[in-house]
């Protein structure tokens, strides 16, 4: 196995505007080549401040950031622009700007104020467009492409800037579900294939758990980092949700609203039918229990024409529903008759 290249080290960093009142506790963490790192945390915890500090756009209160072994503070503007690129959260909105011209602006650190772009520069630009899969719309006006395409164009910008480290501020915020998944997947692939360190902030926990190599979780008590699975197993996701009405289900790895159950019910059945019936009754305020001794039960009967759901009360079938919608309608009526014993 190749030795891991440490591309970014953050040592004893303190974020904020005044030393008396830092916005986040001191922390130390590092990132490596080929890693996709997700920064997770509640609104206002300091994710954007951290990204800006890593981009060299805002100084740390104290502590050091090393980029490829060099202190960030000692790099000139142009050197920094060759090591770190930053993709802002708000989409580019400039009329009459062609996608390819937009991405070409990223070559600025390599050509200076007066010089034009060389054929090599244009090749880098075109390769970047191909890598994110938007070469076919290279000559379109950036205002006329979709949000997903625009986000890819912004990622292509960072690729064309050709930096070891790419920082992205909430790259999936404006995207629909498939685009959210695809963009994070794309970032993960780029980290692996290009050996880059890609660090992005996000509220999309599912996406981060699915693709990120590392999660930097900014909790009120400090920074926790590790593989997303570790953080799930060690109940850090639960800490993230402290004092909220949302809970993390360790078994399924999903997030749910915290529920208070008023009734108990048993379910007889298996497979997908069981999963979705369970979700339905829980949403209606029933706690699912194993014991059949409970007075109320739903029995799933899988037939050729589709499934049926029997509501069984004290051993007697009192209603048969042919859809979960119908089951829901009748179950809430039976639920009202019961007391939570």
């Amino acid at each position, binding site marked *: 196995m190749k030795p891991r290249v440490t591309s970014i080290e953050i040592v004893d960093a303190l974020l904020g505007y005044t030393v008396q009142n830092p916005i986040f506790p001191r922390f130390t963490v590092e990132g490596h080549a080929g890693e996709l790192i997700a920064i997770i945390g509640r609104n206002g915890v300091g994710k954007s401040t951290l990204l800006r500090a890593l981009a060299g756009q805002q100084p740390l209160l104290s502590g050091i950031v090393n980029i490829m072994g060099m202190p960030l503070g000692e790099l000139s503007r142009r050197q920094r622009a060759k090591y770190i690129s930053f993709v802002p959260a708000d989409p580019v909105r*400039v009329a009459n700007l062609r996608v390819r011209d937009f991405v070409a602006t990223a070559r600025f650190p390599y050509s200076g104020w007066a010089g034009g772009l060389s054929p090599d520069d244009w090749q880098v630009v075109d390769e970047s467009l191909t890598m994110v899969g938007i070469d076919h719309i290279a000559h379109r006006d950036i205002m006329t492409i979709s949000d997903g395409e625009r986000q890819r164009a912004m990622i292509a910008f960072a690729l064309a800037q050709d930096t070891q480290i790419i920082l992205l501020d909430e790259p999936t915020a404006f995207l629909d579900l498939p685009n959210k998944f695809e963009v994070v997947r794309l970032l993960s692939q780029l980290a692996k294939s290009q050996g880059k360190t890609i660090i992005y902030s996000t509220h999309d926990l599912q996406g981060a758990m699915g693709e990120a190599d590392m999660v930097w979780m900014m909790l009120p008590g400090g920074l926790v980092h590790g593989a997303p699975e570790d953080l799930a197993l060690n109940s850090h996701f639960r800490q993230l949700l402290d004092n909220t009405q949302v809970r993390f289900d360790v078994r399924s790895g999903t997030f749910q609203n915290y529920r208070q159950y008023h009734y108990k019910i048993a379910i007889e059945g298996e497979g997908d039918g069981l999963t979705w019936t369970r979700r339905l009754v829980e949403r209606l305020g029933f706690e699912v229990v194993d014991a059949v001794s409970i007075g109320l039960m739903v029995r799933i009967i899988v037939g050729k024409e589709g499934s049926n759901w029997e509501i069984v009360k004290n051993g007697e079938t009192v209603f048969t529903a042919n859809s979960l919608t119908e089951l829901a309608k009748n179950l809430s009526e039976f639920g009202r008759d019961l007391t939570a014993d």
Partner: protein
Amino acid sequence: MSSEQLAYKSNRSGRIVLFASLAILLIALFVLDLFLGSVRIPVADVFKILMGQGDNEVWQTIVNDFRLPKAIAAVLVGSALSVSGLQMQTVFRNPLAGPYVLGISSGAGLGVAIMVLGASALGFGNASGMLTGFSLVGAAWLGALLVLMVILAVSLRVKDIMTILILGMMFGSAASALVSILQYSGSEPMIKAFVIWTMGSLQSVAGVHLGIFSASVAVGLLLSLASIRILNVMLLGESYSKTVGLNITVARVVIFASTGLLAGAVTAFCGPIGFIGIAVPHVARMLFKTSSHGVLLPGVLVLGSAVMLFCDIVSQLPGLDRTLPLNSVTALLGIPIVIYVVFKNQKFAGV
């Protein structure tokens, strides 16, 4: 080759055709501007005079000392205002910005007002000779440069571009307020003289003035040409400017200096000519369908010159003995364009 690429290629050759047609239009308007005027000079004679073979001395004087400098001034004014307007729209990322947003012309106006109205208020008499002399141009220059220096000093310290924009507008308003006070206490003939200055004119730019004027515009344009790539970066906004390592403060100082030279020179020599600087960049964007300053800058240069020549021709009311104030012509031509842009860009997607 995909249809996208084909469209791009045709777009590119279309652009060359567009530049060529604009250049031809510019030359045609320039020649037309030389022919038209209150004295009728036959076309053939105008050409003879331009070749240095004229035999009518009066006509020679009219063409060489009045019409030719005026046409050249129109070209310089048109390109200076359009280029500085384009720069300001990009730097402030605001479609309604123009050459005067920094308060440059108000500063020049204040300089002229102090010169013209202040002198009369202090009892220096009705020296109307002042109005064409160096003193007037000097006073306007001083006022413009003073405001420019303040803007540059502010932009070295203030990071937020909106703050700079608001400061520029406030300087402008303060200068206008002072001008009002001076007008209130000035003598009637001097007030009229000042009002006529505010209407704009290409008439007084000749001889040595034309030399200084051309030199100032040339330096301003050179700074602007050197800033093409910076402008392309700044168009994307502050985040992108920072990530690609642009020194925003230095970039602003260079562009503001260029704008100050261009707008300051125009105001000093020709008065505060409005709307060309706001409208022409929008027309250029519509024609060239690009935001790249490598195309837009030469584009507004040619287009702005042509538009200014056209305004000058219209202001002379060809066939009549009267002329219109230049500022009224540029305003009536520019306002519909600005209104069109406002309606078209209701969402204001940047410039």
